[in-house]
């Protein structure tokens, strides 16, 4: 089975090419285009399943397939190679599984769009790139996927290309990600040359890097610098401080894109990358601390911004940034399994939330369109009370909200609780990180239910002309919602901790990937805590209590006493202004980086090229003019001048050398 690995990214690639080349001119039929796109991803999903289950029962857990050589220069040898281990196996399941559902959903959501074929072409290409990223057996193939998903994200954010805001957002996403790529490349170079020139191991292959990482020395400068650089790359792709600002703007793209790329898959690439290089990261406690702290701060800052947004997709975007922060907290305290676990459960419930919001927007859009109103279909202030019109969307959205808030026994509870437990009890744990994490968990429950209540409950604020045109979405939209909601309910059961009588299967599943680093570098739950469940129960109770309090506040403020939010914003108007404007980070970046670079660029061109260089040249030109006026009496024409100068120059040169 493992020699079929290449098929997994191959199917979506073919789908993308077919739809891209023939979709507009020859196929034209939406159903056919959608079937090709969805079918391609579904085929990948089938192959992934087969690989996944083969691997599950296989005692050997690491398999590589080299398809061809890419380039060989000096000591650098790069192959087109794939790697299947428990980590990549789970990732391809998530990518192709959630991917298939979102493709199916898109058939309904994108119905009637002029660029229908283009959308499926890009979306398939994205899945292909994401699978390359996940399956690559060396850092350069991963980088192909890394840039490839960035490209597709760029194309899909800018899908509505006639809107300037979409174009700007797309450009911003790409350029900000390039800043992260800078880090990725520096990290890669550092590891490659250090391992090679100092230890004789010339490789970019992940397996070989992991096996030889110990040569770099625990806590050494090289490994710290390299992992920090890799982490910079991760902050770009996974929207963490300081490079998170592109993600909320990326909501300009169609909603299925936000679900697939900007929630479930691409943005988790940074987390996956740390998982892939867990040995390197484990060797640098400094980097791990930085990762955990950045994750924690991102989580709480993004959650705070989520409080005040009124655009339903923006709330979800900030929630994604915040949840990614949780995953990085996990990676930073050495809870690699918990981080990837949360990545998986988050993919389920966040994709469901985004698709649910898409279903709402879709319905709102049609209703408003029908009533000839140009109210914003994404603004929650125009919603409310949608429950009775869209029961399936309501139910699935609600389930996902409970899941993300961390209420047992839904998926989010197990993964988030595992993360909090590790931040508290791990040998690399950090009470500050735990504290921030716990507070953020409460904030998450609050703003998610704020969003839920504002959309589906309470008084209906939709314009009365549009009100009765709101309808539940068709089956292609609701079926993916139900499947994802189901997964959001049961997805956590693979990681039920021993304290609750579970077997924590996912922990054993990842043992071959993370066990080595955790054992060698002594990462685990502190011994004092390991054998008593008391602390674990205590923390669990605390986090459930925090979540319930968050939900309760949302319930009070947005259902029981809807006048409260207005009073709060009036009372704390300054604070609200800052939160509402996202702490003015975008504005600060504009002033600090964007505008100053633009100004300097203008100087480069107008100041240097036009004034200095051309000034000198024109000056010389004038001088030549004067001289040639004199010479014109003896010579006529350019070519002769040329010959004369040649001769003169030669004479001068020869004279110099003879006189020496």
């Amino acid at each position, binding site marked *: 089975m493992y020699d079929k690995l290449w098929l997994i990214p191959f199917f979506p690639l073919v789908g993308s090419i077919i739809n891209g080349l023939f979709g507009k001119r020859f196929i034209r039929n939406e159903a056919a285009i959608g079937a090709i796109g969805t079918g391609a991803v579904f085929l990948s999903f089938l192959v992934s399943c087969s690989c996944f289950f083969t691997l599950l029962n296989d005692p050997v857990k690491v398999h590589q397939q080299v398809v061809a050589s890419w380039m060989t220069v000096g000591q*650098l040898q790069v192959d087109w190679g794939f790697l299947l281990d428990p980590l990549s196996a789970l990732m391809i399941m998530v990518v192709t599984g959630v991917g298939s559902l979102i493709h199916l959903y898109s058939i309904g959501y994108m119905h009637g769009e002029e660029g229908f074929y283009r959308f499926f072409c890009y979306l398939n290409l994205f899945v292909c790139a994401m699978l390359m990223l996940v399956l690559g057996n060396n850092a350069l193939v991963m980088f192909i996927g890394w840039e490839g998903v960035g490209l597709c994200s760029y194309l899909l954010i800018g899908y509505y290309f006639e809107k300037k805001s979409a174009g700007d957002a797309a450009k911003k996403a790409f350029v900000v990600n390039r800043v992260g790529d800078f880090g990725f490349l520096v990290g890669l170079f550092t590891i490659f040359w250090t391992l090679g020139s100092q230890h004789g191991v010339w490789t970019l292959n992940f397996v070989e890097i992991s096996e030889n990482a110990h040569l770099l020395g625990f806590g050494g400068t090289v490994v710290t610098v390299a992992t920090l650089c890799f982490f910079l790359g991760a902050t770009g792709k996974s929207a963490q401080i300081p490079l998170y600002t592109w993600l909320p703007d990326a909501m300009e793209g169609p909603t299925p894109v936000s679900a697939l790329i900007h929630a479930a898959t691409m943005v988790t690439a940074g987390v996956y990358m740390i998982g892939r290089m867990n040995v390197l990261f484990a060797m640098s406690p400094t980097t791990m601390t930085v990762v955990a702290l950045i994750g924690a701060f991102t989580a709480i800052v993004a959650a705070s911004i989520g409080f005040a947004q009124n655009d339903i997709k923006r709330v979800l975007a900030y929630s994604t940034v915040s949840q990614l922060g949780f995953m990085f907290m996990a990676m930073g305290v050495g809870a690699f399994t918990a981080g990837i676990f949360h990545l998986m459960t988050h993919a389920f419930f966040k994709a469901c939330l985004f698709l649910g919001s898409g279903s709402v927007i879709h319905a709102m859009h049609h209703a408003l369109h029908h009533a000839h109103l140009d109210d914003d279909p994404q603004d929650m202030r125009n919603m409310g009370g949608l429950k009775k019109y869209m029961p399936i969307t309501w139910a699935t959205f609600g389930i996902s909200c409970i899941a993300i808030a961390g209420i047992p026994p839904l998926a989010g509870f197990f993964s988030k609780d595992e993360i909090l437990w590790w931040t508290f009890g791990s040998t690399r744990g950090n009470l500050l990180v735990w504290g921030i994490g716990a507070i953020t968990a409460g904030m998450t429950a609050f703003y998610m239910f704020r969003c839920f209540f504002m959309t589906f409950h309470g008084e209906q604020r939709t314009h009365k002309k549009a009100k009765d045109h709101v309808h539940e979405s068709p089956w292609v939209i609701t079926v993916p919602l139900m499947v994802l909601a189901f997964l959001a309910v049961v997805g956590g059961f693979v990681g039920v901790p021993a304290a609750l009588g579970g077997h924590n299967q996912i922990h054993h599943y990842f043992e071959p990937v993370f066990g080595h680093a955790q054992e060698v570098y002594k990462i685990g739950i502190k011994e004092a805590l390991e054998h008593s469940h008391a602390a674990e129960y205590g923390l669990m109770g605390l986090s459930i209590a925090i979540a319930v309090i968050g939900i309760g506040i949302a319930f009070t403020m947005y259902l029981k006493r809807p006048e409260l939010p207005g009073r709060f914003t009036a009372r704390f108007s300054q604070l609200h202004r800052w939160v509402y404007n996202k702490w003015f980070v975008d504005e600060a970046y504009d002033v600090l980086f964007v505008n100053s670079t633009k100004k300097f660029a203008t100087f480069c061109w107008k100041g240097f090229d036009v004034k200095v260089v051309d000034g000198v040249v024109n000056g010389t030109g004038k001088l030549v003019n004067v001289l040639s006026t004199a010479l014109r009496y003896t010579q006529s024409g350019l070519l002769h001048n040329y010959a004369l100068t040649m001769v003169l120059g030669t004479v001068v040169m020869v004279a110099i050398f003879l006189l020496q």
Partner: protein
Amino acid sequence: MTAATTLPQFPWLSLLIGLPLAGALLCLLHRRSRQECRWLALATTLATLAICIGLFVACRHGDGPWLLREDAAWIPRFGIRYTLGLDGLSLLLTLLTAGLHVVAVLLAWPEQRRLPQFLALLLVLESGLMGVFLAVDLVLFYLFWEVMLLPMLFLIGIWGGENRRRAAVRFFLYTLAGSLAMLVAMIALYLLHGAQSGSYSFALADLLQTRLPLTQEYLLFGGFMLAFAIKAPLVPFHTWQPDALSEAPANGAVDVTGLLLKTGIYGMIRFAFPLFPNATRDALPLLAALALVGLFHAAWSAYRQDDVKRILAYSSISHLGLVLLGLAAWNTTAWQGSVLLMVTHGIVTGALFAVVAMLRSRTGTRNLNELGGLWGAAPQLSACFLFFALASLGLPGLANFAGEILVLLGTFRSQPLWALLALPGLVFTAAYLLRLVQGTLWGPAPAARAAIPDLTVREWLVLLPLIVLTVWLGLAPAPLLAPLAAVGGLP
């Protein structure tokens, strides 16, 4: 030499130079019939390309430093010989030259004014470029170096845009200044070598034996480098280039202008570095500094341009900064990356200029402020534009990436600081290219614009091979890297 034996004995290299020249003459003779001229020029360039491909297939695995060599006495009195040599480096560049000339002729198809002369000049230029990439006698090299100057001058001066006069004069003066410096340095080297060894010769192989005091080496190196730096062009000798590239006639000539720039880098690799090794070694930091300044200066300047061709012109300068950085890093990885990048950049930028020509002929403008919304009107053309723009910004899997990553990786090894300084260039490259994409393809279409036809069959014929090459070289650059391994005289 094992490789050459598989090839029939024939002066193949002279043929590469002679064939386009003959084609040019025939074009002029047949200037009555434009259609005949077109097909004639196309046949000539295709034949030249076929020979190049044949040479590539037959010779790329040669084991000596020279895959093919031709040598004949020419002016014995001054020790001037007619010596042509083909090694891995010149192999790639002749291949690029031949390929881009086919593209140029196809693009020149709709040219209205004095088509036969236009095509003849293109072919003369091809001949000159071939000569530059093949000559290994200094006088012969200089001859070709000047030969390629004139057709370009006329192409810009006669068929160019609104400011063609100014651009042509600038191009001429700049290049002339460089050429003169090189000529003087050449003659001085000739005399010094003669005085030292007793036999006066312009042959590169002989001159390589010269031992010079350091001061003299610096001076002569400076003379050569001035010529090459102006051609490359290196900041601050670059301001002729945006003018020349933006004024060069869109129908074909501009692609080839890109080739002209490659001669600068080629000259450094072939002549300046091997002839003056000590000066080169000392000058590497300076070169790297100039390369970095060029990389950023041009990227930032490109960001502020509104003329699409000027953006691409500055983009060329910026990319060549990276090429030069790889050379200055002075190790195999970076060096091979530089050459690879030089070739792929020729393809990608050539293609971009071609697309812009197609764009211009449809919209009548190259100004970003007057463009936009092209995707709605001509999706095929837009997709091609986007594709090559992405290739140009170094998207992994497409042609430029392999070269860029090798340059950066290699540079990082010997000079980590240089590589660290160069890497943010990736960010700015993305910024100006995406601004270009956004300005042309996206946004609302200008209200006054008439309907735009999409790509024609002829245009697809031009672009499709370039697309295939861009993907192929991105996925498997190995065939281009293989001939470089045996190139002598470098790290």
